[in-house]
């Protein structure tokens, strides 16, 4: 019996009543699915809390949806529309490129050509399963090839070219190593002879592939009864400038091009200059053809642009400084930024639908999926805005840490807890990677998109690496608590803050973050700062926030980019010279490394993380100052605050932040609460480590602690920061009646009132006798 499966995604993620949305659904083994619109209120099924809570919105969507299996094209490649009418296969031709294969061998890879795998027709330049450069041609029945003599060395630049002389039937393959002092994995001391020139008379004359077969970079067209046309034999590695000519070039000419990288325009069909079209503000998906026909290549699944090229000299560390040395376009066989499914449901968000976290619930016999999205207020009315960390959701989307990262268990101090759904997810392996994963060639994954089912950004989901909810399902604890408290709130997302800046926040008296606002764009940093400066009130109730410099390409909110760089707790490390975002031209890495430590905005910043146990906050002396003592109304002087929770049984833990004047905490900040006593599974973060020495763990290092701070800004603004991911996850315990909730309620009650804040009058010098 076929196994039932149902998956969906939607776009856009953040909508207002009246906005149009698309839901893309794929069903396996089913042709109908029941659809229900639900408002998500609580996600974690932990018996200590309220369990999973959703509220159905009857009649909002069609009850039954016709679904079918939709296929996902994995792998990044580039298509050249228009080249099929100018294919060179009928006569003599030459193709040349600079390449940097990152995983030659194991299976066939195609780099450049118009090749039909299914019909064995056309021609292509690629790599054999044994790792040798290969030029092959086919006439629909038979295939012939010329193969280079020596295997390609991984992560090394080569100039490669293949020419075919139709008059003599001779094909020549040229491979020249381009090993510089900086540009590759190995240096000039390694005595490899990288070069190879091989010629042979072909027994098969190439026949142009069918019109439906596109010219591709980094793949070849295949066909299958179920899927139709798709791209196979995907290439892993970089391609720098490439060209195609309708004449067979002499070996000396090819060598000359390989030496200086200047491509001969005579007889050129296409001269792709991968460095053309770069701007100070980023690079798009179009690889520009500077030849006579303008046959531009269009990247699919975001080939990574602006990477170091064959001629990188190491002096300039960004494509903005020296585009000519940054021609590398990196392709991955497992990249995925858009499933490109057909819409199953086109829907308009009903007028009057209250702001909240919603999901389209899809059920079939034996399968269920929630496709979450976020509804903002059409016209903001509530005093409170909850800022959902949609950037963070993207960063962690479909992460494979528990299954593929050997150090994950050492970091989390946990044996992973999997569910049947996780086991299925590993088996399925179809919906791409997170920014915590590596591509199959070992490079870090820098793009993550919501145009694909994201199985861990679902209610009920618990991170398998850690055994408790992470991101959206954890953030719903705050939503449940706000509902329970009867507070009037509306939803915003990182995407709204990114698009509108402070204007998105300004209608609200107070904006509260969720558990983990880790990924921030410059616009989000600016917006938050501006809001605070103009008198806004921010409750930063989370851990490890405002950490990674991330960005969206203008006009493409679906795909977030980050480059993990040089310092910080990082899943990977960008290659030298590849630390700038292709989306915007900014340097990525930590905000702290760019002069904007989170302490400068909210008073605290990342200091440690651990997933063995959480602990509780204790009041610090500053909490007894009348400026803030009102926050602790109803809470004892010695009370353990948050000695419970769905995040490892405490309100302080998982990822924690600390106050530090040296990092820009505003000088008038009060330290309200601190949690310490963490285990050595909470090590001090690596950006703090200049000299490593023993004892930087929670049992010995005073910097390993979670702080809660408060400072005021101009115009009655203020920022309360509680540096712990586990904080919000403690709120639902005991039906929401607990001291963490009490504290937060005290602050929210004050923050939602306009005018001077309570305690603001206590600004005189303490003339103390005690």
């Amino acid at each position: 019996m076929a196994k039932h499966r149902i998956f969906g995604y939607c776009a856009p993620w953040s909508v207002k009543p009246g906005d149009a949305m698309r839901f893309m659904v794929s069903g396996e083994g089913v042709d109908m699915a029941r659809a229900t619109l639900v408002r998500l209120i609580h996600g974690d099924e932990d018996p200590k809390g309220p369990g999973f809570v959703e509220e159905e919105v009857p009649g909002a969507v069609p009850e039954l949806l016709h679904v079918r299996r939709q296929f996902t094209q994995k792998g990044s490649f580039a298509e050249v529309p228009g080249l099929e009418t100018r294919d060179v296969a009928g006569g003599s031709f030459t193709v040349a490129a600079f390449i940097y294969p990152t995983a030659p061998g194991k299976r066939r890879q195609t780099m450049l050509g118009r090749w039909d795998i299914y019909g064995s027709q056309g021609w292509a330049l690629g790599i054999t399963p044994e790792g040798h450069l290969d030029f092959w041609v086919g006439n629909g029945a038979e295939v012939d090839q010329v193969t280079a003599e020596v295997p390609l060395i991984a992560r090394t630049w080569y100039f490669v070219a293949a020419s075919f002389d139709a008059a003599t039937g001779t094909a020549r393959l040229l491979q020249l190593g381009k090993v510089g002092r900086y540009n590759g994995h190995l240096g000039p001391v390694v005595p490899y002879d990288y070069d190879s020139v091989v010629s042979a008379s072909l027994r098969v004359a190439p026949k142009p592939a069918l019109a439906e077969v596109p010219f591709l970079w980094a793949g070849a067209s295949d066909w299958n009864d179920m899927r139709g046309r798709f791209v196979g034999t995907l290439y892993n590695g970089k391609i720098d400038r490439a060209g195609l000519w309708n004449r067979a070039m002499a070996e000396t000419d090819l060598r000359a091009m390989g030496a200086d990288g200047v491509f001969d325009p005579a007889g050129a069909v296409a001269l792709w200059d991968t460095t053309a079209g770069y701007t100070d503000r980023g690079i798009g998906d179009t690889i520009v053809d500077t030849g006579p026909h303008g046959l531009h290549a269009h990247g699919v699944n975001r080939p990574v642009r602006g990477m170091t090229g064959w001629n990188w000299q190491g002096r300039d560390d960004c494509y903005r400084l020296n585009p000519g040395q940054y021609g590398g376009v990196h392709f991955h066989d497992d990249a995925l930024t858009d499933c490109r499914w057909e819409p199953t449901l086109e829907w308009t968000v009903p007028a009057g639908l209250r702001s909240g976290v919603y999901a389209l619930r899809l059920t079939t016999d034996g399968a269920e999926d929630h496709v979450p999205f976020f509804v903002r207020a059409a016209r903001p009315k509530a005093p409170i805005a909850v800022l959902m960390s949609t950037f963070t959701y993207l960063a962690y989307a479909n992460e494979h840490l528990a299954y593929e990262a050997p150090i994950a268990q050492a970091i989390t101090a946990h044996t992973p807890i999997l569910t049947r759904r996780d086991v299925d997810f590993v088996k399925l392996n179809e919906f791409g990677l997170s920014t915590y994963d590596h591509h199959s060639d070992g490079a870090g994954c820098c793009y993550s998109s919501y145009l694909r089912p994201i199985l861990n950004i679902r209610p009920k989901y618990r991170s398998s690496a850690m055994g408790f909810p992470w991101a959206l399902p954890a953030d719903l604890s705050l939503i449940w608590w706000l509902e329970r408290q009867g507070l009037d709130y509306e939803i915003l997302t990182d995407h709204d803050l990114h698009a509108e800046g402070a204007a998105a926040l300004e209608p609200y008296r107070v904006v509260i973050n969720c558990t983990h606002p880790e990924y921030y764009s410059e616009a989000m940093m600016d917006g938050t700062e501006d809001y605070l400066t103009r008198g806004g009130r921010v409750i930063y109730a989370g851990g490890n926030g405002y950490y990674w410099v991330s960005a969206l390409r203008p006009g493409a909110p679906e795909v977030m980019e980050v480059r993990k760089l040089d310092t910080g707790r990082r899943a990977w490390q960008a290659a030298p010279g590849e630390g700038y975002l292709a989306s915007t031209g900014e340097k990525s890495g930590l905000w702290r490394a760019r002069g904007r430590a989170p302490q400068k905005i909210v008073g605290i910043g990342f200091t440690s993380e651990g997933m063995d146990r959480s602990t509780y906050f204790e009041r610090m002396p500053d909490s007894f100052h009348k400026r803030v003592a009102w926050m602790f109304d109803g809470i004892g002087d010695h009370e353990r605050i948050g000695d419970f929770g769905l995040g490892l049984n405490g309100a302080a833990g998982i990822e924690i932040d600390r106050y530090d004047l040296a990092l820009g905490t505003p000088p008038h900040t009060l330290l309200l609460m601190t949690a310490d006593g963490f285990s050595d599974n909470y090590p001090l973060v690596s950006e703090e480590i200049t000299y490593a020495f023993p004892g930087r763990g929670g049992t010995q290092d005073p910097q390993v602690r979670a702080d809660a701070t408060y400072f005021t800004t101009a115009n009655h603004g203020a920022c309360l920061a509680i540096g712990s991911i586990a904080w919000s996850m403690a709120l639902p315990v005991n039906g929401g009646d607990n001291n963490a909730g009490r504290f937060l309620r005290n602050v929210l009650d004050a923050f939602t009132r306009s005018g001077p804040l309570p305690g603001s009058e206590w600004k005189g010098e303490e003339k103390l006798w005690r």
Partner: protein
Amino acid sequence: MTEPIAPVFHKVGNRRHEVVLSPDGASEWRRARVPGLRRHWLKWRGGYNPKTLERERRLADKRPLWWVLGLGALVVAVPFLPNSLVQVAAIFCIFAAINVVWTLIIGAAGILSLATMAVVGLAAYGAAAANVYLGVPWPLMFVVGAGIGLVVGGLLALPSTRIDGLYYALLTIGVAEICRVSISQIRALAPQNSSINNVGSFIPQDWYLQRPGLLLGFASAVGLLLAALLLFRLVNSERLGLLLQSAREDEEFSEAIGIDYKRARLHVFLISSAALGFIGAYYAIFYRSISLNVFSLDQLLLMFAMVVIGGLGRAEGAVIGTAIVVVIDRALIDLGPLRIILIAAVMIAVTLTTHRGLADVRAQFRAWRHRIRSERRATRTRKGGEVMPEEATEIADKQAIAYRRFDKRLRDRLKSLITPALIEEHRNAPLGPHSDDLARVLNYFRRGEMPDKYAILQDGPPHAWTYSVMALSGEPGKPPRVVDDKTYATRDEAYHAVFLLRVNDLLES
């Protein structure tokens, strides 16, 4: 704990005995191809010497080299041999040619036919008769022979599709005997003892059995053998052979993907039979006569000995086997009947000691060496122990060797930390806080490599979650596997179960 005996390190290293080329990457390599085919003349493999990274070009398939050396030596040596041995060399070539073609039938087509000599004999008689009685000139005898071979092959092929293996083999032995008896009944031939003599030949009458004639005969026999080898190559390694290869691996699968292997088999059988007919005509021309001996069971069994000794299915096997048997049978003629016993002894020795005849001896030797190596390593290296110099030659990433040594020493230290009290400490608080000793042990476990690392499966509804232990694959797309059928009621019990499994793994290593 007893101190382990320090391992003995043996020096490793070898001179390079194989001849390799060191081409220059700057110069163009023109790959010559066999006319009309996509094939290159020689199969080269280019790469880098792992010790020096020098560029190397070596023959990936050295068989052409051995053929040239072997047959070349024969051709060079024969002019210096006495007449009797020249005769033996020529006979070797003829029988080798027959056996090579026969190998096509048995090996490539997979038809166990023993009617080889029947086809050769019938064609020889037919061609000789055409020459002697019908006055057909000797060059046309080849056409007659090949034609008879084709017809006889076609008749023999009919039952081959209906009966299998051994029965077909017995049937074909019968065919040979029927031919012998039938020809012996031809009255016209009775006066000359059923043989046909004075067949026309390319060897002039007065050179017959003289040195120039012998040498000419040898030269033609070499030509015959080369032609047989070429045929073998064309049939076995081109389209027909590749089709049949897939059929030999899995008949039903190849049929399912549209390979008509029965038809391909028939084609090979017919081609081979025609070739045997051609050889039959040559046989009559070479000897200038043909007699009933060609059908004798003795002769058939000798040929059978040749292919068994050499190994079925491969041309080199057919030629090596023929060489051995012909040398014993014809060159050691002074030994008398003892020769047959000697051949039988060689045959028995070969079948007892080799898996697939002498042609396969090299692969068998390598497998044997590999087995000995594995056994020796197993005795030298204790499980999870250090890397020996001979193993190090096979590990490209030398850091892995350092890791293994470090890991072994770390494990030895950690083993001493495992006490009932430590296990009890973990049972009481799987997630801590932990003593330094337990933290060290746990951190070691958590840092382990991904394949087979333990994980916990949570199953059932939220208020009745149960837990069991799984092991991760560490490979994308490969799900974790179930470790055992135990289930645990709480997460802490599952954490502890994983801990106990890991302690067990540690102590066992």
